[in-house]
């Protein structure tokens, strides 16, 4: 390829790639927030503010003490300036008039914000087959379809409410899949988490609606520390969706979440994420630091946990949704599309820990890197000596756009068992000048060509997304990469 034509191609693709971030607005609401900074008193105040039982305060304090002894991990392929944890507001909530009894009492500005994001919380316009929990900065604003779900025995509410209404379940399961001291960010999250979603699917129930949480960071200096806990009892089934956006600020904001999933015998949990946090500007200024720990425990026989993620936002992403396959014949899946552009950095992948007999896992990871971004896949497949007959299939594909982007693959495989079957495939390709010329010569515009190549590249992952999200993911990638040249 020649330099000159490379330039033409790159300018054209760059134009396509640099679509403005349309969720970058912020909302003006009256809010109540703590002063910046973190110490034991802040944690006590937080716990008190949320009227939490004592076990939770102790959980937080223990986590805080662990965190103070830990250091920010540096092993990932990421370069960033560590957040100043004393400069973060750990609690920021829209001012509420006591307890909310209906949506009419929610600040109309917030409702408008969610409307603008395409999430309608008002009765008339709700998505008909998705129940939504909307989280704004530190608190959950509203959860739709709660009563309808309750008829099936399904509990879907914010984790703060769950702490008050179902303290036994929280005490029994919180921190069992992701221990507080698991890593630096889980310790921090365990100490200061403010809200998130709680789902409980009783025995034998197939959840009649998809459950969904929409996270919005609004406050400039606040961190969002959300905590999600999903429990699927024996022979139950649930599909959970998660979406995230944030306004455009020059400063980096911190998002450190913990998600725990527990699947008992024959239970099936499908967890899908479309992450579109603000990614920083074209020079890499601002954007969200997304340090997330997501882990699922397949505790029972024949249980299944499936992670699907479409990661397009954040300036730095550090995220490895994982499965611990304890139950016999249990199954773990990880499907991922990670798109990076400009100066974004993503280090993502999964861990599949095979403990039980005949456990199976499948990993399909698709990384797309454009601009000066850095996109790394990091995977760990561990087959324990008791996991007789375990199987794993991994596939990691990278697609490079332009000449300055970077793709890495770090697959770690650790097998202690001769009966295991492990397969790993990897490929790296590039949207090249000759490919594009072929499309153009066949009357197809550059925009459509890139769109077709990208959607072909991501197809295996997109088909795993629930219908409502598949459309959104397609739209999102369109916005990020292929939308009409503005």
């Amino acid at each position: 390829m020649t330099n000159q034509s490379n330039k033409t191609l790159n300018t054209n693709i760059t134009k396509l790639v640099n679509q403005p971030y349309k969720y970058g607005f912020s909302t003006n609401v009256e809010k109540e927030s703590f002063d910046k900074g973190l110490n034991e008193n802040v944690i006590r105040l937080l716990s008190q503010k949320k009227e939490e039982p004592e076990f939770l305060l102790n959980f937080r304090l223990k986590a805080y003490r662990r965190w103070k002894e830990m250091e920010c991990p540096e092993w990932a392929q990421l370069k960033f300036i560590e957040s100043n944890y004393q400069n973060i507001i750990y609690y920021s909530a829209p001012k509420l008039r006591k307890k909310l009894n209906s949506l009419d009492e929610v600040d109309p500005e917030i409702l408008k914000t969610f409307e603008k994001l395409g999430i309608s919380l008002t009765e008339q316009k709700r998505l008909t087959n998705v129940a939504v929990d909307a989280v704004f900065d530190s608190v959950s604003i509203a959860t739709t379809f709660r009563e309808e779900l309750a008829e099936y025995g399904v509990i879907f509410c914010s984790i703060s409410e769950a702490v008050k209404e179902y303290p036994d379940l929280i005490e029994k399961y919180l921190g069992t899949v992701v221990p507080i001291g698991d890593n630096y960010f889980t310790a921090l999250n365990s100490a200061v988490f403010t809200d998130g979603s709680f789902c409980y699917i009783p025995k034998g129930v197939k959840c009649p609606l998809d459950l969904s949480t929409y996270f919005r960071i609004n406050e400039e200096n606040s961190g969002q520390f959300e905590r999600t806990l999903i429990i699927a009892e024996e022979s139950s089934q649930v599909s959970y969706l998660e979406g995230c956006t944030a306004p455009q600020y020059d400063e980096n904001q911190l998002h450190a979440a913990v998600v725990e999933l527990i699947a008992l015998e024959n239970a099936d949990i499908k967890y899908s994420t479309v992450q579109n946090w603000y990614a920083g500007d074209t020079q890499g200024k601002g954007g969200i630091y997304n340090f997330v720990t997501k882990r699922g425990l397949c505790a029972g026989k024949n249980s299944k946990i499936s992670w699907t993620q479409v990661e397009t936002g954040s300036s730095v992403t550090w995220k490895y949704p994982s499965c611990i396959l304890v139950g016999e014949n249990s199954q773990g899946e990880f499907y991922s599309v990670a798109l990076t552009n400009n100066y974004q950095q993503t280090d993502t992948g999964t861990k599949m820990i095979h403990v039980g007999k005949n456990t199976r896992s499948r990993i399909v990871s698709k990384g797309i890197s454009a601009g000066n971004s850095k996109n790394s896949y990091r995977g760990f497949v561990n087959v324990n000596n008791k996991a007789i007959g375990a199987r794993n299939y991994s596939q990691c594909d990278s697609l490079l756009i332009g000449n300055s982007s970077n793709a890495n693959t770090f697959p770690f495989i650790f097998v202690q068992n001769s009966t295991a079957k492990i397969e790993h495939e990897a490929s790296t390709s590039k949207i090249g000048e000759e490919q594009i010329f072929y499309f153009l010569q066949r009357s197809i515009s550059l925009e459509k060509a890139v769109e077709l190549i990208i959607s072909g590249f991501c197809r295996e992952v997109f088909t795993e997304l629930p219908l409502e999200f598949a459309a959104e993911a397609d739209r999102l990638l369109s916005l990020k990469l292929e939308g009409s040249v503005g």
Partner: protein
Amino acid sequence: MNTKLPILEIKNLKASIEDNQILKTLNLKINKGEIHAIMGPNGSGKSTLSKVIAGHPAYTVNDGDILFSGESILTLEPEERSHLGIFLAFQYPIEIPGVSNEDFLYLSYNSKLKAEGKEEISPIEFFSVITEKLSIVDMSPTFLTRNVNEGFSGGEKKRNEIVQMLLLDSKLSILDETDSGLDIDALRIISKGIKTFMTEEKAIVLITHYQRLLDYVQPDFIHVMQNGKIIKTGTSDLAKELEQKGYEWLTVKE
């Protein structure tokens, strides 16, 4: 028959890639209803000529002009040239992993319709259009579900190029060594496709090394390229002479 109307006129064309002058004052005129063959040794600039006509971004036109139906196309993007009806069958058709042939062909067809201001058609309507084209080159509709050129044999790739030519119904089709690497049966099928396609309103340029293809598709004119220029033009007898004597004969003469 119409009086001869030029579909392509190349005037004193000079073109280069990375400061290497490849085409050096090239002149060529092709009328509607004509089939031209371009022959010549490796590196004489045949493929470059085809890519420059199609608007490949790697090449720079330094001088001269290319007129298509009387209008200069030098400032047009490759897709705009395709919309006008210029088609290039690639010497090495490109593989596109993850994109099905059906999606590719459908998008190509509709993009052309749209550019012509016509209404785009539905996938179902398209299926009947494409199956008819496939049958011309003996290809099974199952090949629609495969990814574009991925894992295709050499013959399948070339047949796929011909299918695209039939589909886009181009006015000027340049076939860059479409015959190379084909066995006799495949060559016969492709020749049949080309002959079915050709009308008095169209023109075809065959870039080839061999007499073989020209036995099936008789050209009206044969040009010999050497060192970025057309050094000899003749009728089909010229190909036979070249087959016997090689290109040396012409170069020495020059």
